[in-house]
């Protein structure tokens, strides 16, 4: 079966390395993957605070296209895209009238036959079973797995992992040879889309996260969301100024960490693209 791939906007721009590392790992495990043709923005986060129909129509179009292209399963690495697509599926399947209305807007039929996977679910399904045997360079570091807001919430709809204290990334990282730390900021907000508009807020919010990870001896922060990554990485200057000290812990996508552990080329994983130098 071919796995569908919905990169979303971030993975084509500021988070190219996320796309690169996802595809590199997928390739290394011989998984058939196909990018959804003619995909569009999921609408996050602006659409759902402005126009409900638009906020449903955008993700619904992506899902309809995937259906039309014969895909049964798609991986959505961006946590925000994942949340929006999942919410849309939930809302439309619950409400047939709305489903019809959205199908009219998009002029595309939607049946809800595609299952949506976040990157961890995808890894768990296709990579984890063979991961340990493929590790050539154990990721022997203390890591803080950071889940952010979108990956696990709202729990009633996503039904993924434990909502208050998720564990799936920790388990996965342990298989690469890493030592996940027990810390308190796994699901705190990084400031997300305030990155541009209120950088100081991001400095404070992300600062607490990076600060706690550092205090507890983490050598790397592992993420699965492009916004989390860019805030913790790109806004390190603001973070450091909030904390009043310099912290050099790098922020890696989970696919980059896995890539390193199975011996993929650092460049193929896009590690050179980070602001905080990745020395692990």
């Amino acid at each position, binding site marked *: 079966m071919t796995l569908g791939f919905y990169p979303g906007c971030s993975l084509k721009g500021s988070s190219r390395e996320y796309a690169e590392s996802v595809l590199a790992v997928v390739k290394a495990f011989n998984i058939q993957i196909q990018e959804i043709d003619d995909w569009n923005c999921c609408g996050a986060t602006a659409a759902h605070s402005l126009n409900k129909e638009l906020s449903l129509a955008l993700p619904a179009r992506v899902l309809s296209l995937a259906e039309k292209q014969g895909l049964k399963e798609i991986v959505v690495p961006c946590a925000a895209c994942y949340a929006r697509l999942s919410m849309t599926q939930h809302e439309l399947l619950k409400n047939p009238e709305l489903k019809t209305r959205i199908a009219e807007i998009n002029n595309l039929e939607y049946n809800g036959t595609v299952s949506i996977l976040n990157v961890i679910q995808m890894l768990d399904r296709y990579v984890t079973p063979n991961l340990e045997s493929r590790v050539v360079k154990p990721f022997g570091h203390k890591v803080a797995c950071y889940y952010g807001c979108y990956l696990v919430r709202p729990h009633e709809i996503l039904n993924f992992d434990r*909502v208050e204290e998720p564990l799936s990334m920790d388990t996965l990282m342990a298989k690469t040879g890493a030592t996940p730390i027990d810390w*308190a900021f796994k699901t705190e907000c990084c400031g997300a889309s305030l990155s541009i508009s209120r950088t100081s807020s991001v400095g404070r919010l992300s600062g607490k996260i990076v600060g706690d990870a550092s*205090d507890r001896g983490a050598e790397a922060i592992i993420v699965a969301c492009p916004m989390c990554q860019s805030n913790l990485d790109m806004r390190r200057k603001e973070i450091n100024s909030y904390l009043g000290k310099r912290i050099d812990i790098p922020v890696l996508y989970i696919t980059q960490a896995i890539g390193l552990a199975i011996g993929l080329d650092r460049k193929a994983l896009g590690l050179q693209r980070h602001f905080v130098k990745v020395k692990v």
Partner: protein
Amino acid sequence: MAKIGVFICHCGENISATVDCAKVAEVVGKYDGVAISLDYKYMCSDPGQNLIKKAIVEKGLTGVVVASCSPRMHEPTFRKACAEAGLNPYMCEMANLREHCSWVHEKGEATTQKAIDLVRTIVEKVKHNQSLDAIKVPVTKTALVIGGGIAGIQASLDIANSGHKVILIEKDPSIGGHMSQLSETFPTLDCSQCILTPRMVEVAQHPNITLYTYAELESIDGFIGNFKVKIRKKAKSIDEKICTGCGLCTTKCPNKKNPSEFNEGLGNRTAIYVPFPQAVPNKPVIDKALCTYYTKGKCKICEKFCPAHAIRFDQEDEIIEVPVGAIVLATGFAVKKTDFFPEYGYGRHPDIITGLQFERLASASGPTLGEIRRPSDGKIPETIVFVACAGSRDEAKGIPYCSKICCMYTAKHAMLYQHKVHGGKSYVFYMDIRAGGKMYDEFVRRAIEEDGVNYIRGRVSRVYEKNGKLIVKGADTLLGAMPVEIEADMVVLATAGVANEGAEELAQKLHVSYDPYHFFAEAHPKLKPVETNTAGIFLAGACQAPRDIPESVAMASGAAAKVAGLFSQDELTREPLIAVVNRQAPPVFSSCVGCFLCMSACPYHAIEKEEIKNRQGEVLKTVAKVNPGLCQGCGTCVAFCRTKSIDIQGYTHEEVYSEVMALLND
């Protein structure tokens, strides 16, 4: 041939103002089988009743129809009058001319016609009525009380003091329940054990009470007044008759590091143990799951040291069967443990404890002898945070209800802390303060105003450890949801009160209803708070919903009064309006074909299988039988039976059929 007397009441002018009563009497008087038909101003008055009695005697009436108010009002009155005149009371029926006719319609032809129709209908019904005798059931005047907490203790003592036998069973080695674990009690701050232990001793010494500790209900059979219960007495591995309770065994037992249930895991106990010093009975039991001899086959040190030679390693569980007439359920509740809270680290931090654990810390008989010391390192906490509504009123946690006791005990905890740790800082995060009760709100105000407890209205989102401190993150909603962070040394969660483990299975065993949270359901939320929907089984205390001590005790006394009332008679008299499965002559025996679909339809499990046997004891047929002790007379089975083999007395097929026929045809 039926001889029916019809008595039309004017009810002053309540009926006669809109219904032509004389005309009703006249028309009805002409119907077949009506021997006398008259109207009178007040049928329920003495002269009115005398009219009926006189007619019964003089005319030899076989049935009586009183057309007046609702039968829900005066049916007992008129049935009693008929009985006094020698007519079977169930041959008397009422037509509802007041509530269902004169009061709801305007004066006129149609209203009088309706009155005539209503009376005619009931006349036709009475023609098909049968004499019925009240059901008499003998009563076994022994009560079973399940659960030896304060509710069970109170219920046992009240029943025993009214002169009846009580069997009290408790699953733990000692009675006392949660109340024995408490330090002080709100709102008076008197010592819990000081008021409880005398009651415990009284139970043990009461001549009317048989106490079985370490015992559970195995099975139950029968019905009100006539239950048969089997009790499993778990093996204590000691001979209680010989044991003097000297306690030497518990000091010698080498297996010492087992978390003590009584101390909520904050202290240890040995494998052979008495749960706490004031236990009743004050004799040890061997915990087979922990004892080195039982797990590894070697040790027997207690046996060696026992001066009375009372240790019995070969003792087995014993099942005893006893007849009882009533049952009081007082199985109490449980609290959620800290591992229920992922946001507070799944209870992994030793200094995040439950309210019940705090009780043990504050108790003079507790592991710290009443000093508030935190479990991790024994330090006296300088800052302590109490979190009310930990789990309660939280839809996401599946506990939308209020646990009711936490507001009060949290105030008490904070107060005790302030009294014991001078200069200590205490915070209470709360959603609302629910302190309804005598002297309750005053108590909370005292905590806030006199003892300086800081109340913060808001919820705690996360507790985590950092640099040896517990960081409590929350919001103060009275300051516009301003984020609050407190660095605490200890956190006490007022965890939700929930139904006891196994409550659902026990309820199913007893055929008692339970609510979605597995608390036992009362028969009526307002008017039958201690009854269950199974006659003869009553509720006391927190097994019905979270309850504080005064409420539990009041409920227990209420349940005891119900039991005493039941036991005040030698026989139970019940209305005979119950279902009956027909019996016919051999070889048919009954038209019942034995499909037993009625069994699953009966809300009361009142339908049994009866094997009809010949003289040789061979089963000829298996048919349904209604247990008159359990049947409440709803008739659900009657409408369901395909062969029309079940009928319900008072509302038989013939009775209701003839009513419907008469309604539309005169």
